[in-house]
């Protein structure tokens, strides 16, 4: 187990460098960001040159990358163009996005798994077909359309919730955005649980448990669910990273000042310091989530042993 974890941690190193390099290059090919800092007019060449020097943009890309990574390891993620430290930006953005992600994941777990178990046990019945159809519709409508429609209906027409999230971004304000963010994954979780439950419901151990005369609830919760949840847990685990980075659209629609918003602003202003910094943290979260999922996997399925 310990050796496995160490091996996995070591494998993260090249991935970490690969991703940061890729993002660094991507932001760099977008061109010179300094031109965008002077409004609708040309930056005077001397100031532009000074700004480039200040942000290290006058150096070759590999050197910029090396300097940047060197700084990252000392905890310095650089400065955005408006003079704000990127670590400061992260300090305000990540807590908000973490809250949003937690809300989304809770939705996935509670609604997704309940619906999945329900439909899995009633395969082919009207309830099953109905839920299945709804999940398909949720998957096929783009998230931004779902988000805008929910905002219009709940926030503007019926006035049930605040349409925009305030800068405090409390959990109750994040419920609707969280649901929107979770919607597609939620549909997948439902479907995944459904298939998995349906498949395991015919397994020998379930038949044995039923034959032993165990109450149905106990069979479902102790035997069936535990085995059916393995693929669901792995999905949700890997989804955490995706939700955090994929909230660009949701955060923009609902005025959430989280990671997605900062990333979008960073890209639009071509601030490689902001973008690379945020993505670096996201990649770490993603890799760690993957590792935890793999370890959890061994807990849930005793057949798996990590050497």
């Amino acid at each position: 187990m310990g050796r496995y974890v160490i091996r996995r941690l070591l494998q993260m190193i090249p991935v970490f460098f690969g991703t940061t390099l890729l993002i660094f290059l991507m932001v760099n090919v977008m061109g010179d960001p300094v031109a965008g800092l002077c409004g609708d007019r040309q930056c005077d060449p001397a100031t532009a040159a000074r700004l480039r020097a200040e942000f290290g943009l006058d150096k070759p890309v590999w050197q910029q990358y090396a300097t940047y990574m060197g700084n990252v390891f000392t905890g310095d993620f650089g400065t955005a163009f408006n003079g704000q430290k990127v670590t400061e930006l992260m300090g305000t953005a990540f807590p908000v996005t973490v809250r949003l992600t937690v809300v989304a994941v809770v939705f996935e777990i509670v609604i997704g798994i309940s619906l999945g178990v329900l439909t899995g046990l009633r395969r082919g019945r009207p309830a099953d077909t109905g839920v299945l159809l709804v999940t398909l519709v949720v998957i096929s409508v783009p998230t931004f359309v779902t988000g805008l429609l929910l905002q219009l209906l709940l926030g503007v027409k019926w006035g049930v919730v605040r349409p925009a999230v305030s800068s405090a971004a409390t959990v109750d304000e994040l419920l609707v955005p969280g649901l929107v963010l979770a919607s597609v994954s939620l549909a997948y979780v439902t479907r995944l649980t459904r298939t998995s439950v349906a498949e395991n419901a015919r397994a020998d151990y379930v038949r044995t448990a039923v034959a032993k005369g165990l109450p149905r609830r106990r069979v479902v919760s102790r035997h069936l669910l535990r085995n059916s949840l393995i693929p669901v847990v792995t999905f949700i685990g890997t989804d955490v990273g995706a939700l955090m980075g994929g909230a660009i659209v949701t955060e923009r629609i609902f005025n959430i000042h989280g990671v997605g918003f900062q990333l979008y602003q960073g890209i639009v202003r071509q601030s490689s310091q902001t973008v690379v910094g945020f993505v670096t943290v996201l990649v770490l979260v993603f890799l760690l989530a993957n590792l935890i999922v793999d370890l959890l996997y061994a807990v849930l399925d005793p057949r798996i042993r990590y050497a």
Partner: protein
Amino acid sequence: MPEPHYDPDAAISAAGAGGATDLAMDEGETLEKGPGGGPPGPDPAGRPRSLWSDAWRDLRRNPVFVVSGLVIVFLVVISLWPSLIASGNPLHCDLGRAQEGSRPGHPFGFDGQGCDVYTRTVYGARTSVTVGVCSTLGVALLGSVLGGLAGFFGGSWDALLSRITDVFFGIPVVLGGLVFLSVITSTTVWPVIGFIVLLGWPQIARIARGSVITAKQNDYVQAARALGASNARMLLRHVAPNAVAPVIVVATIALGTYISLEATLSFLGVGLRPPAVSWGIDISAASSYVRNAPHMLLWPAGALAVTVLAFIMLGDAVRDALDPKLR
């Protein structure tokens, strides 16, 4: 034998394959079976009852497959010949009629620029179907070749590929789109397709890798190896046919989400460029007018949803048909 009896990586990759791209689907359970649970291969000697012919027989009788298939055929036809059902010109717009509702000859009304919504919805099918089909082909081809090779040969190849897929998974799709598509300024659909292939292939690669590893461990493959079959023969004759099913399933479902992704990219301002006509462009343009003129959003979004739905249901049906356990 690199792995004792079970490859956790393969199973996990498959289950979580879509995580990063939000394009995931429930392919997990097809690979979840552990030892001995793989799809039974075609009888090496007998022709009459292969997995494929069985599946096809099932599909023909499945109403879901028939309906989604017909919808897709219809979409393909109007993508090729939109003028069959729309006589107007999607690029002709008269601002004087902006946001007007439906009237004779213009059943869906007009959009914010005074273009005919019906004509644009019909013509938009071509772009969306092209994006969906071409991206899926590219993703499936690239992903299954790279993933399959990695799974088959294992070792350092495999390690390298797994790390590369990790790298691509780490990049949020929307972020990648913003960067990639703001650099490339061609007015065709190809940059969008190229981008989707670039970020989509690792998903398929993981699945292909996982299913190749599972298929490789089957007795008949071991037998073929013992009989001295070459790598190429083993891969093409024995492993690939058994590993391809999950890829097909995931690809058909992913196709729908790629069409949806094009719309999201347009919403963020980096999708297709004018004068392209696409549902994504129209949906994002209409999204800010949803309060005043919901018809502008309804039609292209409805068309998009129906198309995506058709492809996902097709994929679903194909998956059920290819999975013998669910028969």
